[in-house]
């Protein structure tokens, strides 16, 4: 167990380093130029003298050779310092971290709703004896995956804010403003959870031990919720690790739709300004969440299922790719 945990922690550190390097390669070596974007884009930039542009580059350390830049950035990143935002001059880490609480509030509520939606559809769909109802409930997750998230958000605003006038359409004011963004965020996530749980419930219900439990006289509810669900929930735990990172990514779209402040808005603003340090900070933060949550899931896993010795996160994702 000790060596298993140690190996997992080491892997997590490697993934973080690799995510940093990947974002460095994408952001620093590709042709986009934040300095030109800051100095006013296309037309005005040509009006500047080459000396002025070179000076601005030197100010952000963008004129060093790539390996010097990489070394400096990596040393900074080890202290959670991703440099100053080119657009605003603030610390990139500070900008992202101060924007985090409202995003986490929506993501947290979204995760709870996703578990309710997905878990509810999968459990009720496999439990009901009415075939049409089961088919209907189990067709909801594939539907949820196919809907554009931004469109769902706008339709919800139309219905609940403009037609029924029960919930606010925009902004960060009070707990009511959390509801619509959280539902929007929960829909695709809940759909993924629903698909995984339904599939794994069906597999478990076909296992011989279920037959044994039935033969011993357990009722349908007890078989379903007491025995099958307990084993079927294990892959869902892994999925929670995988989708938690997606919740952060989903906030990019939902925060634009609902004009909320948060990491998503910071990200879109940074992409618009080609503000490399901020984009990099967001990507490393997303990888950090992914790694930490998966680490937690991986460490809980052997406690729930002593058979586990291989990487569960990778295994479930492979199953997803294979359908």
């Amino acid at each position, binding site marked *: 167990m000790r060596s298993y945990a140690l190996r997992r922690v080491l892997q997590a550190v490697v993934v973080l380093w690799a995510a940093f390097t990947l974002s460095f390669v994408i952001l620093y070596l590709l042709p986009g130029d934040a300095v030109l974007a800051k100095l006013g884009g296309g037309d005005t930039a040509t009006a500047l003298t080459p000396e002025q542009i070179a000076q601005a580059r030197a100010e952000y350390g963008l004129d060093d050779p790539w390996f010097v830049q990489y070394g400096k950035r990596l040393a900074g990143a080890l202290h959670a310092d991703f440099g100053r935002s080119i657009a605003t001059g603030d610390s990139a880490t500070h900008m992202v971290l101060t924007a985090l609480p409202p995003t986490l509030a929506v993501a947290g509520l979204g995760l709870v709703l996703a578990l309710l939606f997905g878990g509810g559809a999968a459990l009720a769909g496999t439990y009901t004896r009415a075939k049409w109802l089961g088919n209907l409930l189990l067709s909801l997750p594939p539907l949820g995956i196919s809907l554009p998230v931004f469109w769902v958000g706008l339709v919800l605003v139309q219905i609940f804010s403009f037609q029924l006038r029960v919930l606010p359409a925009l902004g960060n004011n009070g707990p009511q403003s959390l509801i619509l963004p959280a539902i929007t965020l929960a829909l695709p996530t809940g759909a993924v959870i629903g698909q995984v749980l339904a599939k794994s419930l069906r597999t478990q219900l076909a296992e011989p031990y279920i037959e044994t439990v039935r033969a011993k006289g357990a009722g349908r509810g007890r078989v379903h919720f007491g025995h099958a669900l307990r084993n079927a929930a294990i892959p869902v735990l892994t999925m929670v690790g995988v989708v938690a990172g997606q919740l952060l990514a989903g906030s990019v779209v939902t925060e634009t739709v609902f004009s909320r402040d948060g990491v998503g808005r910071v990200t879109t603003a940074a992409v618009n300004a080609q503000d490399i340090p901020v984009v*990099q900070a967001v990507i490393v933060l997303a990888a950090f969440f992914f790694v930490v949550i998966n680490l937690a899931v991986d460490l809980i896993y052997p406690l729930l299922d002593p058979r586990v010795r291989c990487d569960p996160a990778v295994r479930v994702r492979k199953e997803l790719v294979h359908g």
Partner: protein
Amino acid sequence: MAELIAVRTGFVLRRPGLVLATLVLLLVLAWALAPGLFTHYDPLSGVPRQKLQAPSAAHLFGTDETGRDVFARVVHGAGLSLRAAVSAVLISLVAGSALGLIAGARGGWLDAVLMRFMDVLLAVPPILLSLALVTGLGFGTTKVAIAVGVANVANFARLMRAEVLRVRTGVYVEAARAGGVRWYGVLTRHILPNAAGPVLVLAVLTFGTAVLEISALSFLGYGAAPPTPEWGSLVAGGRSYLASAWWMTTLPGLVIAAVVLSANRISRALEGERHD
């Protein structure tokens, strides 16, 4: 022959959803190829006097704030949006399959290095990875398509590698090798055709995801510059008129959802076929 046709019609009739899905994709493809056949309105310039009209027989999807026909903009936008989605799928299909094929066939340290690299790509959510690429590459439909394509490479690489590993141990591969076929002959004529099936199913599925991701990036404003119609930016354009003109966001969004649902339905059917 007649029996075969009877079996096929039975197969099709038992799957009305699949027929509908195919029809939706064919219709959208026709929009992309010959938009003029489906609408005679100009997608770029409108009649200001007819602005913000609700859907009617004359304007199926209503009109927008400058009096342009929304349906015409959806039809004319199909070309750009579909081309972007297809390019994205081709990029991830070709690059991912090549990487997976090399990793699976060569094995050893190359396999280990390539697959660890793919694991890192999977650790960053696809939309954030695409956003990083857009930051580096700049804006525009082609660049968005490249960004989405690269973000999906890892899925193809993993699947192709798994398939190659499955196929590689086959007796016929051994026989071909023993018979003196060179390594690239074994790879292209024996391993690739037998490993390709599930990868192509994934390509159809990814087409749906690519339509979603590209429209999301276009919604955020990183796609084509206005007034060029593109599905995601059409939905974004209706945002300021949510309260007064529901059709400007709802109907183009429904078209996107229908295309994605259809692609998913077809990929599920193809996957089922493989198991039958």
